[in-house]
Each structure stands twice: as structure tokens, then as C-alpha cells.
């Protein structure tokens, strides 16, 4: 190829672009790396100034995250020497492990509520979006605007009415209540996003399937759904990120039973001084499901975000 081309960027432009992408990646990844590193530091290394880049890794943060501990006398420790590696870690501080912490169940709550509401939002959103895209619906535009308008204020602005309603209906501190709430918040986004994707799928495909001997629902299931996979994947990721990270409602509406990880993680700080490594360990583990989910769907996501920008 010659040195000049309209469509092909020059070598210099390509390296510049690569430099920008790498620089941006470093800037966005730095806090993440910081958190992951802090999770493996000892409490004194975690608050050392200037910050330690090279340090001796320890699993102390993770042990503290998953356990509750009590202080014991030196005699007690001498009589009952620690046997496992994690007991040895806490013994350095004159402590013994009293039992598991509640992080495990909080994390499980997050998984149930996050993925449950994501599934519901995407499932209901796909059906609604298909109907809005394909059928003649009276007051369609007004309905769509109404659906969008539910997102025109921050959801937390209606926290008090929701709090009262949940108490009346017995939904406070239940998984079903939180799934319902996050689904309600995400549904408007989901309907709008998916309608855009389904609008782009030509009707001819379904009509073709109808003539080929399939019912409307079969045509939807066999022809529309596979082609909307891109949109469904990216919508699911957006919904999951919201439900996964949501903090304010989780603080307000959950306590004992259905509390998710975000309100739990800050409470770790209070247990036995400012335990930053344990907080960082909690945050690191908390990041994993969304990352895995996004990586699994990344192929669809990339196409999904640029969808509509490039006509095939």
C-alpha cells in the first residue's frame, strides 16, 4: 500500500492511536490495580506513606474479610496453638477465629438479586420492546415517553414512598422485593435499548418465517431473538451493572436477610480498626462476577455498543 490512502490510517496515526488507547487503559485500570494490590497488603503497608509499590503479599485482608475474630490472652493462645494457615495469621495479632463473617451470604444475596433482576428486566424488556416495535399500539409514543420518564429523576428521590410501600407489602428486606425494585428501575432502560435493536431487524425475516410455516411466537423465538442477541447481551450488562452496584436502596431496604454486598463492605472498616486490606479484598471479590459476565459477553457487547453506527 502506498503512503497515502483515504481509508487506511498512516503508520504514525496508528501508533498514536495505540498510545492513546494504552494510556487511557492505564488511567482507568490504575484504581482497580490499587484495590487489588491493597487487598494483599498488611494493614500497615496499606496506609504507608509514601505508598508502597513493592510489598510482601499477605492474605490477611481476605482472612479478615471472611471471618470474625476475638482477642484472646497469650496463655490461651499458648494452650491452643494455631493449626491452620489462617489461624496463624490472626494469631500474630493475639486473636482467634470465632466464626465465618457474613460476607459470603451478602455476596450470594448480591448474586441472586443482581442476576435475578437482570434476567427479569431483559426478559420483560424484550417482550415489551418487540410489541412496541412490531404492533400497532394505541398511544405508543406516549407510553414510550411515560416509560422513559420514570428515569427522569434519580430513583432514590422516591425512596420514602418506596420504603413505606415495601413495609406495607412485607417486601422490606426480602430478595423478591429487591429484585422487583431493581427490575422496575432497569425496565425503562431495557425497553428503550431493546426497542432500538429490534427496530433494526427487518420485518421481512419474520414474515418469511410466518410464510415458512411458523407461528408468530415461533418466528419471534427462532428468527428475531437470535438476531437480537447482541442487543440483549449489552442490555443485560447495563442492567447487571446497575443492580450490582446499587447502594442507597440496599442500605435503606435491607438489613438482616437480603442485604447485598455494597452496604456490607463499608461495615468491615468498623471491625477492629480501619481494616483497609479487608475492604479492598471485599471490593476485589465483588468486582469478579460483573467482570466475568462482561468478558463472556464481550463479543456481543462490542458489536452492541456500535450497533446502528455502521450499516452492513
Amino acid at each position, binding site marked *: 500500500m502506498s503512503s497515502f490512502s483515504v481509508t487506511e490510517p498512516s503508520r504514525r496515526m496508528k501508533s498514536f492511536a495505540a498510545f492513546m488507547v494504552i494510556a487511557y487503559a492505564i488511567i482507568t485500570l490504575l484504581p482497580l490495580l490499587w484495590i487489588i494490590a491493597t487487598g494483599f497488603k498488611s494493614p500497615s503497608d496499606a496506609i504507608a506513606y509514601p505508598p508502597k509499590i513493592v510489598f510482601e503479599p499477605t492474605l490477611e485482608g481476605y482472612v479478615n474479610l471472611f471471618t470474625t475474630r476475638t482477642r484472646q490472652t497469650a496463655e490461651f493462645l499458648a494452650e491452643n496453638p494455631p493449626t491452620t494457615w489462617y489461624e496463624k495469621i490472626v494469631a500474630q495479632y493475639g486473636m482467634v477465629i470465632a466464626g465465618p463473617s457474613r460476607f459470603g451470604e451478602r455476596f450470594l444475596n448480591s448474586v441472586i438479586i443482581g442476576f435475578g433482576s437482570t434476567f427479569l428486566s431483559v426478559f420483560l424488556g424484550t417482550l415489551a420492546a418487540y410489541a412496541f416495535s412490531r404492533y400497532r399500539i394505541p398511544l405508543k409514543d406516549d407510553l414510550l415517553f411515560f416509560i422513559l420518564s420514570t428515569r427522569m429523576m434519580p430513583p432514590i428521590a422516591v425512596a420514602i414512598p418506596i420504603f413505606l410501600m415495601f413495609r406495607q407489602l412485607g417486601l422490606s428486606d426480602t430478595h423478591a422485593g429487591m429484585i422487583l425494585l431493581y427490575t422496575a428501575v432497569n425496565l425503562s432502560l431495557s425497553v428503550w435499548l431493546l426497542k432500538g435493536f429490534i427496530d433494526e431487524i427487518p420485518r421481512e425475516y419474520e414474515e418469511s418465517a410466518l410464510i415458512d*410455516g411458523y407461528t408468530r411466537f415461533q418466528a419471534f423465538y427462532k428468527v428475531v431473538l437470535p438476531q437480537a442477541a447482541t442487543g440483549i447481551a449489552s442490555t443485560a450488562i447495563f442492567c447487571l451493572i446497575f443492580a450490582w452496584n446499587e447502594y442507597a436502596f440496599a442500605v435503606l431496604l435491607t438489613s438482616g436477610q437480603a442485604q447485598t454486598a455494597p452496604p456490607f463492605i463499608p461495615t468491615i472498616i468498623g471491625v477492629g480498626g480501619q481494616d483497609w486490606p479487608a475492604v479492598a479484598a471485599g471490593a476485589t471479590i465483588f468486582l469478579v462476577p460483573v467482570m466475568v459476565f462482561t468478558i463472556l459477553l464481550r463479543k456481543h457487547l462490542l458489536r452492541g455498543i456500535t450497533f446502528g453506527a455502521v450499516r452492513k
Partner: protein
Amino acid sequence: MAEVVLQNVTKRFGDTLALDNVSLTVPNGAFVILLGPTGAGKTTVLRVVSGLDAPDSGEVFIGRQSMNGLAPAQRNVAMVFQQYSLYPHLTVRENLAFPLKSPLLKTPPDEIERKIAAVAKVLQISHKLDNKATALSGGEMQRVSIGRALVRDPAIYLMDEPLSSLDAKLRADLRIELKNIQAHSGATLLYVTHDQLEAMTMATHVGVLDRGRLVQFGSPRELYENPVSIYAASRLGQPRINLLPADLFGGAPTGAKSIGLRSEQIAQGDGEESTVRRVEHLGDQTRLHLSFRNHDLVTVADAHTQLQSGDIVKIAPQNPFYFDASGNRIV
């Protein structure tokens, strides 16, 4: 295969009248082509027959059975769309198998294999069966979508300008293939196009649609030699029929407003003088653009004609068509 009848079918989309009281019979085993410009209602006829659209009034019969209220799947019709014809998430083989696997047909797997192989051979796509549908060229895609109709044995094949997006050579090849397939299988086809060459070469019957009305129906020859109106006469013939004021040559019947002259209705060599304005050598024929008493005409001359612009040619009408003020033919 079956006879398909449209009886007084009317269809509106909002304020536009797409089909205006259309009655049409597609005989069993016929290749019927509907001609007309964009917006004439050709595609609507196919959609009404297939059941994708319901007529506002009138009825569709397939094999003497009323199709009133029947879903597309219940009508046993196959349709080829103008574009977006293949399911992009499936391979060629899966595309061809799709109608056979429908809950309606539930074809056994070995039968599916056999039918796909047979159709793929006819359409010369056997080597592409495992390709993704989106990895095909335009011509291959359209052949596969025709194949998806051919694997079935429907009451009627409906085709909506299936060749319009192809290049000239492929179009000519597929035209011959389609005609062959139809002639061998005795299939009934209702085919929509605005390409007169397709109509002339493939059809057993041609219907001309004008703003939702069926204005003429007959064999291609009949339509060409005996058009009922200026509109119908303009659908067929290359170069297009020349329309001139009726009194230009004399001898016009009373009430005639215009005279219609196809190339073969213009005798060259005697009559009145006209001036050659342009000569177009197309290879197999040569077109003459003539000026006759300040009116322009296009006709055909011998391929090796020596005529040049500025020359004088004598012309005379020969069995011309005469049309009245509203464009209807005066016989």
C-alpha cells in the same frame, strides 16, 4: 399446486388505496407476472395472497378454498422477498431446511437432506451449503432464497422482484433457470417485477397494475400487440412506444387524441420526411432519434446502418395504435 383466485380484493393503507377491486385468476401451472411501476400495488397482491396482509374487502381463494382469516402458515404458500431474504444467523443448509422443519411440515431428517441436495444441485449452490448465509455474494443469496421456496411443494410460489438486486448477467442466467424449473415442475407462480424483459421471457400471463387497479391481463404477446391503453402499451417494448398527436400523420379515427407507434409500426423508406438527430449503436441494434415536425421519436434501424445525424429518413405509420383523450385504445 393449485389455482389461485383473487375476487374483488380491495386494500387500503391509511389514505392510500393500494388495491382497488382487483379480480385475478392465476391458473394452475401458470407463470403469472404482475407488471407496474413502484406503488402500483404489485407487492400488496403478493402480501394479500400470502396472508401477511388481510384484504379490506374481497376474498382470496387457493385451490377453491377461501383463505379468509387464515394465517400465512396455514395457506401453504412460498414467498421469495426482494431483499433480506436469508436468515443471517443460519447457514445455507439451515436456511434451506427452515421451512421443512416447520411445525407445519415436520419433514423427517433424511427427507430434508434429500430435498436440500436436490435443490442445491439445480441452483448450483451445493458447495456453499455449510457457509454462513451472510458469507454469500448477492447472487448466491438470492439463489438460496429461491431455493428456500423450491424445497417446499406449496400451492403457489410468490416472488417479489427476486432478481432486481442482481447484476445483468446473473439476472439473465437465473431468468432461464427459473423458467426451466417452472416448466419442468409445473409449478404455479405469481411473480412481481417492473422488468419487462422478465415478463416477456418467462410469463405465461401478464397482469398490468395501475394505481391498484388491474388494467389488463393476458399473454405477453397479447399485451404487447393489443394493449388496452397508453399505460398498458408503455409497460412493454424497447425502445418505449412513441406517443404523438393523432393528427400528425392523418387518417386518425374520430375521437383519437394520440397515436402510438412502436418501432415496428414505423415503416422507413417512404412517407414523410424526418430528420435524424442522434444515432445510438447498441451493437445488436441501432436506435434512431428522429425529429418529425418538431416531435421526437425513437425507433430502431439496421445494426449496420450508415445513417448519421442530420440525414433525412422518410417514415410512415404502419398499423398504429390510436388512443382517446383519457388514454384508452380506440379499436
